[in-house]
């Protein structure tokens, strides 16, 4: 039985872990403010790997930050595990594109940071940290500082730091966007391995169609300003996926036409100087 079937089974019997209903987010004073999210309805079930896909300015990071609790919705209902989101918390571990490792702490101390706060006993802490160093191939780097690591290694540490707290949900904001193609693929494979072995729910923001189809059990495409859900598709290809297969490329092509239409609208605004970023 592959992971995909497990996901299907869980969907049938469990409540959504993340539930967004009529979520709006407006930046700046209303009216006249920029509507980043409009009427978002989305349910994410335990074990899903959801990729939020879209061009710059489509609100995919805004939605992720709302789930993380960094920037709450202007209106609408947003719940995680049945409770409304009011603040950031360790039950929603966030992995940032810029790694956001604490540069003054060693690899080991970075991974243990959340456990220190939680007050985990030193023996258990050492065990968790050792397991994670092992799982992510970081053993030799445990006493290094982040500045001595490559981008790929840094992102591994950031993933380990979040996994240390064993959160039900992992939120990832274009985590592999700054990496070269080869490192990127090996981290994608590693992430899939971790997802399938520890059974996390992952919400993953990307603007790469290829990445979304390679990783996601489900891809949610957002429209450019205001950010609404344009298409919500389950990707039925078995893992590990072959990015050269005709099936893979057919899905990619299908999604590409949707994303490119949004990108064209973004590019038009960009020429008019209307984009935020």
């Amino acid at each position, binding site marked *: 039985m592959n992971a995909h079937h497990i996901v299907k089974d869980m969907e049938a019997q469990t409540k959504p872990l993340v539930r967004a209903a009529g979520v709006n987010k407006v930046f700046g004073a209303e009216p006249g403010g920029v509507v980043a999210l409009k009427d978002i309805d989305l349910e994410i079930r335990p074990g899903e790997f959801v990729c939020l896909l879209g061009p710059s300015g489509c609100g995919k990071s805004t939605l992720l930050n709302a789930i993380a609790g960094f920037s709450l919705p202007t209106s609408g209902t947003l719940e995680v595990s049945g409770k409304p989101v009011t603040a950031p918390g360790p039950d929603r*571990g966030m992995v*940032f594109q810029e790694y956001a490792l604490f540069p003054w702490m060693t690899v080991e101390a970075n991974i243990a940071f959340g456990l220190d706060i939680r007050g985990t006993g030193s023996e258990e802490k050492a065990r968790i940290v050792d397991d994670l160093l092992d799982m992510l191939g970081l053993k030799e780097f445990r006493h290094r500082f982040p500045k001595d690591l490559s981008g790929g290694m840094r992102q591994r540490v950031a993933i380990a730091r979040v996994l240390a707290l064993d959160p039900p949900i992992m939120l990832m904001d274009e985590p592999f966007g700054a990496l070269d193609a080869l490192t990127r693929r090996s981290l994608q494979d590693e992430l899939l391995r971790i997802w399938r072995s520890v059974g996390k729910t992952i919400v993953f923001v990307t603007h790469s169609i290829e990445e979304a189809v390679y990783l996601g059990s489900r891809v949610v495409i957002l429209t450019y300003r205001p950010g609404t859900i344009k298409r919500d598709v389950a990707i039925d290809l078995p893992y590990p996926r072959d990015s050269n297969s005709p099936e893979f490329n057919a899905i990619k092509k299908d999604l590409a036409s949707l994303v490119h239409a949004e990108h064209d609208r973004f590019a038009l605004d960009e020429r008019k100087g209307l984009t935020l970023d």
Partner: protein
Amino acid sequence: MTRTLFRNLAVPVVILVLWQLLSQSGFIKPVILPSPLAILERLWTYLLPAQSLGESAGVSDWIWSSELLSDLVASMRRVLLGFAVGAGLALPIGLLMGTDRRFEAYLNPVVQFLRPIPPIAYIPLAILWFGLGDPPAIFLISIGAFFPVLINTITGVRNVDSIYVRAATNLGADRMTMFRRVILPAATPYVLTGMRIGIGTAFIVVIVAEMIAVNSGLGYRILEAREYMWSDKVIAGMIAIGLLGLAIDVGVNRVNNHLLRWHRGIES
């Protein structure tokens, strides 16, 4: 390598030789400008014990008997005490001013008003308040160290990248953890720069303070030497001050580099 060494030494050597010749020719009176050799000799006797030490004498006997070494120790002690008081007050106040807008609103006008007043300008007040001796000297030095540390700490806290705060909040950090394990270490590069400037200012102020309020230390010694018209001792004292200043800066830099070994761009 040897070429660089030659270039580095050429100008000082030429200056010293010309200076020595000029003094030997009798063209300039030794009181106005003593010869380099006379200064070196004076520096040597200044360093040696004032009276001959017994067989059993150790290093500490030598330090207390050598005028130069006891002056060095006296000046150093004042710098460290004054710096400890000034930086010790500036660090917590700076951390609070950097993180808490309300706290900053209360204190900023006072800080901005007092900051441009040079520590030297406090001398008359320091003597009125504390009399003579160490207390006014420590007071002046601590003022000299206070503001650089304060201003840099505030800037350091303000410049903490918000991504660290977001990451720490996400991992469950409360206010105290955020302060101690994120904001303070993230601000360390700035704080240490402030401390380096602060200890430099403290060193300037100690020399001035010793010329006014006390009767020991390097500052006192060169002023005393002038009263006897011992210009060779004045310059020997200046050299000692220069060497001590250099040693302090090198030492502080070492400590900084160790504390900032995690940092990307370490200054040399």
